[in-house]
């Protein structure tokens, strides 16, 4: 008899549910004649709701599972929650988007679900191979989703660029993992942590760590590994751009945090200097480049690069407070950015014809509710109270000051002051300028209205009453320190 490894299916239940729902959507879509996309969306959204319930017990579990390949702890719970929220909102936004484009793509939702299964394994992985498998599952799904629009050469170009650069960065990640294995003889985070604590770290181990850093920086779009971001975000369908900027970023930061705090914690002096430089470059370049964009999707792409820079400040701070700041920041960012992309989807219309900033002229008069929602999201992105974005920046900057990184915070504050300019330009266009030709009025769908209401309410609510969520974030990072 061959011993069966210990299996804890209950712990991976959220991922299992999404996976099964993905299969179901693929199969059912084949046999439904019309409205297959709606069927896919309903299956996907139901699965997300069930998975949210199945995710709840993870918070108090705190056990390794599957022979130490993954761990079920509060950190995994929190990030699973973030992933489920972003997938759920993306599904709501996508329904409207696909109807607008006149497409009946049910595969869209199946791939979205499969991709989030990869994310869930990535955030709970405690073995470099597991993290890599999760990373690839998530990336391959997103490569396809980027180019999912038929007959759009811009989307195909974006997809191919993302595929080539993404595979390259995955290869770097894998090479780093191989070097770490060569140096330490282990790929599990616990084994690597022991090796780095032993004090005699070889050059090979350090190079391996550096390559992992490059791989992660690529996925979170930190300068100088950001080159793919504007083109890919611009070419992808708007809801997918939103999903990439929050879901993929959250999953990548989760693994980034876990790997760097759990196993390279003792080498923090080495990597925090590198991250310091990356954070400064990312904030400066992201914000400066966003200033001159005339396309709203490219502007939000550069803004998402800048936000990766702010989040990196939390990693440089290197304390539990900084990490908790990152978790809260990502929570706020998911609602803010997906909300902003929901508005971009609405205003974009068929074929994404209206994605220039000039298309927002007069929105305040023709659609006051939509313009108000967009203003709230842009305020939150700029970090102005009483929105969630303000509390996020405040916590991260506060943690960095407590660790003594005064200059880093000064650069962060200055660049985010510069960012106010380009966010407010859109607000100004909406309220103070009039369009040359009055466009046709936009039609809300129930799912879109739900997504916008939810995001606006959460952005304001967790901005005004942040304590509970900050405490949750603090509780969730305990397992890392």
């Amino acid at each position, binding site marked *: *008899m*061959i011993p*069966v490894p210990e*299996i804890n299916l209950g712990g991976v239940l959220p991922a299992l549910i999404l996976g099964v729902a993905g*299969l179901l959507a*693929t*199969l059912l879509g*084949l046999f439904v004649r019309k409205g297959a996309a709606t069927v896919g969306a309903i299956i996907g959204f139901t699965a997300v709701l069930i998975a949210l319930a199945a995710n709840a017990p993870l918070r108090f579990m705190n056990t390794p599972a599957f022979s130490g390949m993954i761990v079920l702890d509060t950190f995994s719970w929190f990030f699973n929650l973030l992933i489920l929220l972003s997938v759920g909102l993306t599904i709501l936004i996508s329904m409207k988007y696909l109807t607008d484009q006149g497409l009946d793509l049910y595969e869209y939702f199946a791939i979205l679900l499969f991709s989030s299964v990869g994310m869930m394994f990535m955030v709970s992985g405690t073995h470099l191979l597991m993290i890599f498998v999760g990373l690839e599952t998530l990336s391959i799904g997103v490569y396809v989703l980027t180019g999912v629009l038929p007959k759009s050469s811009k989307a195909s170009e974006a997809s191919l660029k993302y595929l080539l650069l993404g595979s390259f960065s995955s290869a770097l990640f894998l090479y780093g993992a191989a070097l770490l294995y*060569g*140096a330490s*003889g282990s790929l599990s985070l616990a084994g690597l942590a022991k090796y780095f604590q032993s004090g005699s770290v070889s050059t*090979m181990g350090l190079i391996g760590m550096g390559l992992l850093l490059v791989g992660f920086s690529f996925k979170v779009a930190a300068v100088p590994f950001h080159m793919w971001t504007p083109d890919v975000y611009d070419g992808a369908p708007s809801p997918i751009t939103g999903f990439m900027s929050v879901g993929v970023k959250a999953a990548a930061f989760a693994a980034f945090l876990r790997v760097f705090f759990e196993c390279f914690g003792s080498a923090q002096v080495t990597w925090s200097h590198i991250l310091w430089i990356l954070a400064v470059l990312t904030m400066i370049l992201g914000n400066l480049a966003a200033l001159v964009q005339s396309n709203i999707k490219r502007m939000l792409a550069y803004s998402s690069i800048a936000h990766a820079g702010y989040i990196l400040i939390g990693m440089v701070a290197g304390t539990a407070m900084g990490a908790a700041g990152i978790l809260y920041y990502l929570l706020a960012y998911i609602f803010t950015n997906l909300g902003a992309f929901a508005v971009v989807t609405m205003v974009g219309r068929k074929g994404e014809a209206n994605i220039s900033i000039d298309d927002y002229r007069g929105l305040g008069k023709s659609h006051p509710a939509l313009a108000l929602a967009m203003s709230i999201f842009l305020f939150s992105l700029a970090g102005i109270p009483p929105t969630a974005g303000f509390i996020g920046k405040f916590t991260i900057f506060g943690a960095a000051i407590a660790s003594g990184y005064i200059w880093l915070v000064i650069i962060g504050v200055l660049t985010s002051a510069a960012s106010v300019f380009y966010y407010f330009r859109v607000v100004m266009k909406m309220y103070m300028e009039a369009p040359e030709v009055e466009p046709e009025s936009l039609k809300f769908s129930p799912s879109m209205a739900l997504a916008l209401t939810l995001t606006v309410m959460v952005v304001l609510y967790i901005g005004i009453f942040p304590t509970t969520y900050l405490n949750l974030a603090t509780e969730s990072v305990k397992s890392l320190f």
Partner: protein
Amino acid sequence: MIESYVPILVTFLVATFIGSAIIVLSTVLAKRNPTPIKLMPYECGMDPIGGARQRFSVRFFIIGMLFIVFDIELIFLFPWAKIFNQLIPFGFIEMLLFVLVLLVGLVYVWKKGALEWE
């Protein structure tokens, strides 16, 4: 740790040496008597028909992709088939689930017409 990789380095060096030695020796020592037929590209003994860099139908790529997926399924199935009687019931159900997932994929490509050549 690193010492255990020395045999690999030695193998690598020996392989490089033999490979380059053969090429160098044959260029230096061999008699040269080129004829047009000898200089033709080798295509399994047939006369070459045209350039090798022509465009292929995209169908080949789909078939190739599907082949890899089901080929890898077989790689998993062979060792399992050898010992599956020792894996009952867990290993048996596990493999059935794995095949089921791939089956969904097969139904999908079938229904989508990716297996049709025309």
